[in-house]
């Protein structure tokens, strides 16, 4: 996994609530057996019109907005457990998703792929969305070590599981940790068998 410590960049505003993983990556694109290429199809059905033409109203088709940060409405990533949603966002180039609330499974999937789900207060989110809309060049700094997001809206600290923070900063994943616990797991299995 790629390491993540600090990121400075512009953002794409997507002020829609309850964005589910079916929108992030529709099911018909889940037929691949590797993790490549999902970025091309992120938000596919919002990016294109019925006739296949570009939906010029959709923010990802608006050249004014770009950057490694997606700022989205409340309850981002609800629905299906498909990790393809994280691969699609990462493949497109997003490293951080800012929202006022994340669905559990998506949050875990994002962290397992080096994408930071950054939860801010509803007020901060509202102001940030407005600020980016008015000034697409708004610069945002995400400092994972200090757990602080800084923008024209102000500075706000954010929470992250301390273990996951260490993983993100060092590029570790859970498999490394779990494999280091092999003996503990095996002794747990033995004790359980005896208890039955």
């Amino acid at each position: 996994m790629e390491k993540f410590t600090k990121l400075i960049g512009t953002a794409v505003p997507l002020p829609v609530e309850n964005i589910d993983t079916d929108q992030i990556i529709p099911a018909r694109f889940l037929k691949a057996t590797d993790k490549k290429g999902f970025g091309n199809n992120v938000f596919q059905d919002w990016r294109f019109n019925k006739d296949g033409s570009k939906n010029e109203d959709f923010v990802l088709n608006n050249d004014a907005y770009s950057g490694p940060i997606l700022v989205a409405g409340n309850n981002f990533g609800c629905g299906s457990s498909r990790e393809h949603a994280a691969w699609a966002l990462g493949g497109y180039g997003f490293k951080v998703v800012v929202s006022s609330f994340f669905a559990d499974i998506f949050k875990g999937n994002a962290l397992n792929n080096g994408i930071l789900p950054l939860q801010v207060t509803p007020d901060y989110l509202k102001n940030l969305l407005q600020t980016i809309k008015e000034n697409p060049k708004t610069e945002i700094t995400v400092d994972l070590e200090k757990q602080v997001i800084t923008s024209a809206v102000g500075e706000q600290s954010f929470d992250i599981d301390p273990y996951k923070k260490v993983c993100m900063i060092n590029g570790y994943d859970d498999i490394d940790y779990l494999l280091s616990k092999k003996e503990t797991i095996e002794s747990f299995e033995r004790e359980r068998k005896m208890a039955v």
Partner: protein
Amino acid sequence: MTVFLLKSVKIGCFEPNIKMAGKTLFDKVWDAHVVDTVANGPQVLYIDKHLIHEVTSPQAFAELEERGIPVARPDQIVATADHNTPTVDQHLPIKDALSRNQLQKLTENCDKYGITLYDLGHEFNGIVHVIAPELGITQPGMTMVCGDSHTSTHGAFGTIAFGIGTSQVAQVFASQCLLLTKPKKLRVSVNGELKRGVLPKDVILYVISKIGTNAGTGYFCEYAGNVFEEMSMEGRMTVCNMSIEMGARGGMIAPDETTFEYIKGRKFAPKGAEWEQKVKYWKSLPTDADAEFDKEYNFDAADIEPMLTYGTNPGMGMKISGHIPDKNDENLEKSLEYMGFNKGESLIGKPINYVFIGSCTNSRIEDFRIAANYVKGKHKADNVNAWLVPGSQQVAKQLVEEGLDHVFTEAGFTLRQPGCSACLAMNDDKIPRGEYCVSTSNRNFEGRQGQGARTILASPLMAAATAVEGKIVDITKNLN
């Protein structure tokens, strides 16, 4: 044991008023599976059963391969092909090359690592959340995971069961464990008498419409009250299945005689002395009377009616007699624009051209019995395409044994082969753009059943009635 008692007495002396709160069903199962705790971090949770399917497993197998890691406990994994399978001509090679490749990969991986696979055409093949319970794989007190958010279904047995991402699928392959922070505890109680025509699907749609799609995020839910106690296992599975639609990773119902009766005699159920021993343990699992929850909701069963969704998430539901909310809300407006509905309107009388009875929510034998009972002697409306997709080969077989297949075919319904089908429309079972589908599945997201398709979630009874009438009707007026 002696040490433990002494310690308890000692604490008692210093703090005479402090009493250890009881444990919830969730606590009991969770605590029994904690292998280790990371300082200041998550816990290592042991997983008893790992269910896999073709869509969310290939990248996990590839990950192991790349890192040279073996599968730790292949005998605790069960595989099926369900998400991306055709529901017609399953005996023929799959036409779509990508789908065929995905199934081929599953077969190769299962062969390579010695994992039991109920492949397409196998007598035990079917939707992962239908087959594991019907084969007796799902048992109370277990931890179960699957790369599918509706794994919450198995909680109906008093099991900690939840959906995971593909990285976690790889973690379980590698270690039979997951790193997790223990969720908080939520209890949803529904007490009282349900009205006629109100099914388990209506109960859960009602609950979600009341508390919203993220009320359960960060929580594991327990469903309690006489309504759930009196439900069949099929009904309990429908309820637990949709826990994720209110954000909860999982939902559980205390195991009881109904649970034991369902499991007994199934293929992988414990037998003989082991059965007795297991039942004794299972009986110790229900939540203690003095256990505490972080959040509780209570509902009156009498307030529930047959339910329908009008929007693009499962929380946007209303009673059949209700009207779409009339309020200024951008998200509501965006949803209604997609659905082609107006604020303040009733859905009764809306013409519907597609009906889907299937999915891990409502594709069990009881669901088809309910639908057949209504349909018997009637015929579907001319405008309606009515698709019935059983959850498994076993359900399909039972349909025939009970003669329900005749009831449906005589009524003009199309009976297809098992699979996830039009619930997520990965295969060819797609609802055309702009069309409405009254569906017994679990999600009404934009495009879920096909690009531009408009989903109205409902119970199998409501779906059957819609198929017969060709429009949405108030089912309570049609019941004798």
